[in-house]
């Protein structure tokens, strides 16, 4: 029988393609021959906009990229600017950053497990994981005033200290979450449908993963033991004791296991960080850079002038260039900043993990069935807002 290649547009309306991704799939029967991704046109133009903003004004742009992990985006940005400036952050601020970053990892992975399970057809996990995520969203709101676009970190520290009741709320999360993870595993890890849809699907070997620049849980799922938090530490991650999970079979199931273990490890890191938390300042001793305390802005003319100067003119940053990568839930999020000595970034480049990871989709899905493509998109855990900054 003569066969014919069929071209099929998958997305942007397909639920698994996150709104703007379109995959032009060439099929021989049900088998994928070729994939041409069109990554959509969101075009917030964050890199271009930051060239016209001061360093403080560019910060709120960053948490809009990966809207599932806003604080991680903030973290990479403030670390890059702090590196350019050469300033040190007080210990309390650093510890709070770690707590918030790990809570963000939990939050992002919860959305991943929810959507990935839903893509494959498991509805219960979706509802459970969003219920748990809501707890972290409440914490976000408590700490920063916003549920999504937190804008909580500042160059030199944090925008404000932790509110009353934070510790109890975190403790509740620490106590209950491991049980929730057990529930997800109970629902999925021994579920025949789940196993058949994930084992041996979307295989990418360690060498190929490195070749394609894949980072984060997807890289570790392929058996590469590498985590920026442990291997190129930032924000004092070297002080925490945690395990880096690694997969063996390089398939969708391994990436699922890696992320689940990562969530359990995040809970441990938060627990350690909560115990380290000591009272102290939350902003670096750098009056040129950091906003003055609110009492002095409201009660003294010097404080008001000081605040006004930083808010309107920004602060000059020494000429030079730096790159700072952080371990985002999706992979390595990097900020490459070039300063020309003025108060605005000359060039701010974001190295987005989702963008680079998605580049490997054809390699991962070629030769498998069209139905497995859904699982491959889900396992990469992409956020289109980050792909098309």
């Amino acid at each position, binding site marked *: 029988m003569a066969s014919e290649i069929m071209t099929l547009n998958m997305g942007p309306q397909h639920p698994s393609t996150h709104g703007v991704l379109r995959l032009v799939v060439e099929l021989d029967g049900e088998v994928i021959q070729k994939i041409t991704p069109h990554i959509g046109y969101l075009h917030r133009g964050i890199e271009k906009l930051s*060239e*016209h903003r001061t360093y403080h004004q560019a910060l709120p742009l960053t948490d809009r990229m990966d809207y599932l992990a806003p604080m991680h985006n903030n973290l990479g940005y403030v670390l890059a600017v702090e590196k350019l400036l050469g300033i040190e952050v007080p210990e309390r601020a650093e510890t709070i950053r770690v707590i918030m970053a790990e809570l963000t990892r939990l939050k992002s992975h919860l959305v991943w497990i929810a959507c990935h399970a839903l893509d494959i057809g498991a509805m219960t996990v979706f509802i459970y994981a969003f219920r748990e995520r809501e707890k972290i969203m409440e914490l976000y709101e408590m700490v920063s005033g916003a549920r999504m676009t937190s804008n909580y970190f500042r160059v030199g520290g944090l925008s404000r200290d932790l509110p009353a009741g934070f510790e109890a709320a975190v403790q509740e999360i620490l106590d209950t979450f491991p049980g929730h993870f057990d529930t997800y595993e109970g629902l999925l890890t021994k579920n025949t449908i789940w196993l058949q849809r994930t084992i041996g699907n979307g295989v990418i070997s360690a060498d190929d993963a490195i*070749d394609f*620049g894949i980072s984060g849980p997807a890289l570790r799922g392929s058996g590469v033991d590498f985590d920026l938090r442990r291997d190129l530490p930032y924000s004092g991650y070297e002080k925490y004791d945690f395990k880096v999970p690694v997969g063996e079979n390089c398939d969708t199931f391994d990436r699922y296991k890696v992320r689940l273990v990562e969530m359990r490890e995040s809970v441990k890191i938060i627990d350690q960080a909560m115990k380290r938390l000591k009272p102290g300042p939350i902003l670096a001793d750098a009056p040129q850079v950091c906003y003055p305390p609110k009492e002095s802005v409201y009660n003294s003319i010097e404080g008001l002038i000081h605040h006004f100067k930083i808010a309107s003119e920004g602060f000059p940053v020494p000429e030079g260039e730096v*790159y700072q990568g952080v371990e985002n839930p999706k992979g*390595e999020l990097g900020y490459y900043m070039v300063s020309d000595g003025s108060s605005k970034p000359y060039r701010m480049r974001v*190295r987005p993990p989702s963008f*680079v990871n998605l580049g490997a989709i054809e390699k991962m899905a070629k030769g498998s069935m069209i139905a497995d493509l859904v699982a491959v998109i889900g396992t990469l855990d992409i956020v289109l807002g980050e792909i098309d900054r």
Partner: protein
Amino acid sequence: MAENNRAVVKLKERFANALLDCKEYRGEVTVTVKKENILEVLKCLRDDLRYNFLTDVTAVDYLGQDPRFMVVYHLMSIPNKDRIRVKAPVTEADCSIDSATSLWNSANWLEREAYDLFGIDFKNHPNLVRILMTDDWVGHPLRKDYPLQGPDREPYKGRLS
């Protein structure tokens, strides 16, 4: 100092004529090389010095200077837990450089993005088409002479405050 860095020492031995500059700033090593030699240098870094992971390819537009563009490669060594930055100047008149796709597949999309937003032509790239903008888009948005608010609009005059 940058001179003592293992990679820099090796590159100085091998590519004495190609190296334009070596610098260390905030603990990060930057090597600037002639664009004719970029593939050789990257290959040497990948194979001999174990910088096996191409993290990023991007460009910077230094409008008003010559050469105008700087193509920037960020490499990472997974076994050595180390980073290095390689830069190559590209002039406006001959706005092209060899593609690194023969060394890393990750260069494919990253170079397409640099082509799309800066208009740098990556020679021997298998599929050099726009990736973020539509196919028929005119101009390269991240160039410094491209208006912030897009073409056919009043130029941006800064915030009123």
